[in-house]
């Protein structure tokens, strides 16, 4: 007979998380690398605040990051995501990425011309517990359009 029996409370219920902010972000990025949008979103809080500056997404939310990820894995089915660096500064984690792929569908208004894309990007995540609550995304849309053979910013769909 056990004299002392302590009820085990799950760590989640105690508010204890096992993952570091960097691990949470790496889970997101690893799923993105595998083009698994739903797995990437599994570590994103439903109330996430999203700013994707090149796509003019300001004060966006969960649906905006879902759309952004879906659009890129759809338009670039051979997407190759290189994680160049991940920097943890407290609850903020910044990832430097290179996004590569061959265009197979229209993307960000650019008609598919089967061009190869390679664009350096920076994603700044804010993590609370084991969920991402903020995403700020930076890349140069001029560089992206140049690679996709777009000639003018006011005539993106004209080739």
């Amino acid at each position, binding site marked *: 007979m056990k004299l002392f029996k302590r009820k085990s409370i799950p760590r989640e219920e105690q508010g204890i998380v096992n993952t570091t902010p960097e691990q949470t972000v790496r889970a997101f990025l690893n799923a993105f690398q595998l083009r698994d949008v739903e797995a990437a979103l599994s570590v994103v809080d439903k109330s996430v605040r999203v700013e994707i500056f*090149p796509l003019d997404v300001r004060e966006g939310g969960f649906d905006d990051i879902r759309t952004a990820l879906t659009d890129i894995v759809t338009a670039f089915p051979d997407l190759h995501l290189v994680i160049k660096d991940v920097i943890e*500064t407290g609850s903020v984690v910044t990832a430097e990425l290179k996004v590569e792929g061959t265009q197979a569908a229209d993307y960000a208004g650019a008609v598919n011309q089967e061009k190869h894309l390679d664009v350096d*990007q920076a994603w700044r995540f804010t993590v609370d517990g084991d969920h991402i609550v903020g995403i700020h995304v930076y890349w140069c849309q001029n560089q992206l359009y140049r690679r996709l053979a777009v000639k003018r910013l006011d005539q993106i769909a004209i080739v």
Partner: protein
Amino acid sequence: MTTTEPATRELTSPADVVAAFFEAYSRHDVETMTEMCTDNADFSYIPYEVWGKQRVLRGDGKVRTVGKVIWSGLINSFPDLFNVVHSIDANDKGDVVVMCDIGGTQQSPWGFAAPKGGRFSEPHLFIFHVDENGLIDKIKAYWNGAGINRQLGHLEVD
């Protein structure tokens, strides 16, 4: 006989160093910005690409040879160049990440963008590394160049 204490550099946190860097940038004090960096500090403005017929000029190199020239050129083209720092996040390894807006009113050509008196303000992300002596030894920056060009009325993707 007069003895002089050797000059000592007051060490501050990496976040303070970077905050002071942006203050110098606000004053258009390129010399101080440069002096806050090591002699061999790396510099990379990722979106900076000028495509010529035979070669591409990129914003990659060293602070003293590439960075200083770009900063001076920017201030010359945008005499009221400003920055608004929104956040500075740092760790104990010397990494510092800054979210800010940079903007100004164009008075002379910048890249292929002819001056039309246009004004821009664009979100930027800077990544610094500050060494153990309190000197910046790496500067990287990301922004959306198309956002700036649109605001300046330069619509060619060149």
